[in-house]
């Protein structure tokens, strides 16, 4: 509907306006979308000094926040859950969650509406946004789990909670795929699983660029899962079919290394889930119920056990669901951790090791070997540029012990796109960055950063800002495209076209050491900025 409206508008323009009328695009109202739903503010968003100002009330209320106005003091209050923002018209001083902050741009009033930079609102409410110059519109995406995470009910349950509190709190904060309301599905099924395990990409830690080591393929022994990602597609254990019987869980124990759960008989079929804010690891055990010895430990339906594990605050358990009967075990984490479900001989036992979470970043050098990529204006190949860049990023990023760098290639090797995707997904990486060089007409120049899934937008924005600054090349914007490596990866994924190899000036720089070092440093700082480990 909206597109046909735009189309119609365009056609009317075509018929009525002289060509020059299109120069006056500032007069076109900016459209505002939230999760691809058109919002209808009283005042259209405006571009002022390079900032997109949006009406606070429309945006905040569409995000479920309450907006208050005190005419005497010209004060605006935005409240949602524990988020409390106090603003004063024409003043840059603001109070956010009780902390004084200085805004880049003061709120102003336009036709009775308080206007604030979109960037500010996005940051405060965890809303991702994108400016689409083509349709002159702002697209905001609110991941449902973010919205839920800041609602008051999501605070951790204190010990000795009443009744069903434990269950409800955990239910509310589950970032299960069924509640993602983003316009595109967050995890897209791979249409043709023609993945072959053979062409093995290489992993390097600590910047050893030419010594490929075998991939730590997720062996049946255990699968690592990074924090904050409940990936429905990645099932850590091949799920045997339940026998339909309900089996009694007889003991739950957390040692200093492992969680050990035993059932009287049957097969335990754990469904792991990682939750953030606060960090928890949850195991649901369908077709089980707590036995009397465990029930005795419970206060109402909540049981609690002490933890000997350094990463875990405490263990909670409950008879969580009825159909099928399901025991839920929750590990309240002191710090982010990865779990690894160990393979044990006894099918009625669950043994889970908890290990330090390490951030994993996949750096993908575009092209390679028989796929040379674009040929540059001086006859050099894109694959050289991308490899040099990737290796430099690896060398820099691997210096940070908090980050594990995984390289899709470290030499002139050909890797299929699907294998790049599988490599990142199998290793459950936290981020994916693909580095490329562009090609078109001699005069075309600049940086383009591409993403496909909405959850990659933040990362794209950070990468783009850093690379535009480091290169000094024209800003050709963050764009969307369904390139395979950014489409089918399961983590935030970005493809950056650093510059145009068909442009003499850009090409000359792109093959120099100093320029590559500079851009590599900017990519590393962008990654760290995004991961919040600056």
């Amino acid at each position, binding site marked *: 509907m909206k597109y046909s409206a735009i*189309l119609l508008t365009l056609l009317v323009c*075509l018929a009525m306006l002289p060509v020059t009328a299109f120069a006056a695009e500032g007069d076109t109202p900016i459209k505002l979308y939230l999760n691809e739903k058109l919002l209808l503010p009283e005042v259209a968003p405006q571009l002022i000094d390079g900032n997109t100002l949006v009406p606070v009330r429309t945006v905040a209320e569409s995000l479920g926040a309450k907006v208050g106005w005190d005419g005497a003091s010209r004060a605006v209050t935005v409240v949602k859950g524990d988020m409390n923002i106090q603003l004063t018209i024409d003043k840059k001083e603001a109070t956010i969650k009780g902390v004084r902050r200085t805004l880049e741009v003061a709120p102003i009033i336009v036709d009775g509406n308080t206007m604030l930079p979109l960037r500010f609102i996005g940051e405060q409410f965890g809303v991702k946004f994108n400016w689409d110059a083509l349709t002159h519109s702002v697209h905001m995406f609110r991941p449902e789990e973010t919205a839920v995470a800041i609602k008051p009910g999501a605070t951790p349950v204190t010990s000795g909670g009443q009744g069903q509190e434990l269950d409800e709190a955990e239910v509310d904060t589950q970032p299960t795929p069924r509640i993602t309301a983003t316009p595109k599905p967050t995890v897209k099924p791979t249409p043709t699983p023609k993945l072959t395990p053979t062409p093995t990409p290489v992993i390097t830690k600590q910047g050893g660029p030419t010594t490929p080591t075998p991939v730590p393929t997720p062996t049946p022994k255990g699968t690592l899962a990074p924090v904050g990602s409940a990936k429905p597609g990645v099932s850590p254990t091949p799920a045997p079919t339940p026998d339909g019987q309900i089996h009694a869980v007889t003991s739950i124990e957390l040692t200093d290394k492992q969680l050990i759960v035993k059932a009287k008989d049957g097969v335990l079929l754990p469904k792991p889930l990682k939750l953030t804010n606060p960090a928890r690891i949850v195991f649901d055990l369908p077709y089980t119920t707590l036995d009397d010895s465990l029930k005795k430990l419970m206060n109402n339906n909540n049981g609690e056990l002490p933890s000997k594990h350094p990463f875990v605050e405490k263990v909670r358990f409950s008879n969580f669901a009825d159909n099928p009967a399901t025991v839920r075990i929750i590990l309240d984490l002191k710090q982010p951790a990865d779990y690894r479900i160990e393979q044990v001989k006894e099918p009625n036992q669950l043994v889970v090791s908890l290990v330090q979470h390490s951030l994993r970043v996949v750096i993908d050098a575009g092209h390679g070997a028989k*796929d040379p990529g674009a040929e540059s204006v001086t006859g050099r190949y894109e694959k050289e540029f991308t490899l040099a860049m990737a290796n430099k990023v690896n060398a820099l990023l691997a210096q940070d012990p908090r980050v594990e760098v995984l390289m899709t290639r470290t030499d002139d090797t050909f890797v*299929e796109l699907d294998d790049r995707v599988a490599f990142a997904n199998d290793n459950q990486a936290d981020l994916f960055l693909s580095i490329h060089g562009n090609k078109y007409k001699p005069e075309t120049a600049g940086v*383009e950063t591409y993403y496909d899934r909405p959850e990659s937008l933040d990362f794209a924005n950070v990468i783009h800002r850093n690379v535009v600054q480091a290169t000094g090349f024209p800003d050709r914007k963050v764009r969307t*495209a369904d390139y395979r*490596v950014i489409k089918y990866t399961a983590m935030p994924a970005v493809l950056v076209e650093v510059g145009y190899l068909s442009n003499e000036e850009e090409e000359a720089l792109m093959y120099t050491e100093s320029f590559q070092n500079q851009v590599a440093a900017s990519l590393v700082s962008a990654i760290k900025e995004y991961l919040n480990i600056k």
Partner: protein
Amino acid sequence: MKSRWIQGTLLAGVVVLAATGCGQKQLSGPGQDAGNAAVQESAQPAPTATPQQTAPAKQQLQVKAYFGDDNLSQLIEQETTITYDAADGPYAAALAVLKQPQEAGATSLFAGVTFNKVAFDAAKSELTVDLSLGADGQLGAPGEDLFLQALKKTVFQFQEVQSLVVLKDGGAVESLMGHMDLPNPIKRPN
């Protein structure tokens, strides 16, 4: 995808407007050619072409071809008349046009491409295009995106083509230029 197509349509419209002013209907974008019945009819290869009396039947046909705009953002549609042997069908001649933009502001996305073989299997309604990318043929990610769009639009303007098989140097590949999928076959979009 739909939105991108419409965005493409919009931009094409704007580009056309900027380049030519209003009212030059033969240059209008793909979304606006619904009323341009003459073009659509003439795009039906065999029946409307005027048969020649001489033996090696040369036929003429007005076809659409697609090029990159100055900003590598959208396709530009152009029309041109091709001459082809009735026995061969219009496909190879239509694809050859992709290498020759007719107007300023349009850039060929196929400059470095050699079409080795273009064959239509009428029984399967399938067109097979085997191509090679020369030194200059491989584009960046956005170029490959537009390249594939241009190829598909050009091929599927022929109503009888229901699917398209693209081979590179005679073989099926996962991706032509290392960014986009290359499904085999590519089905006619609905």
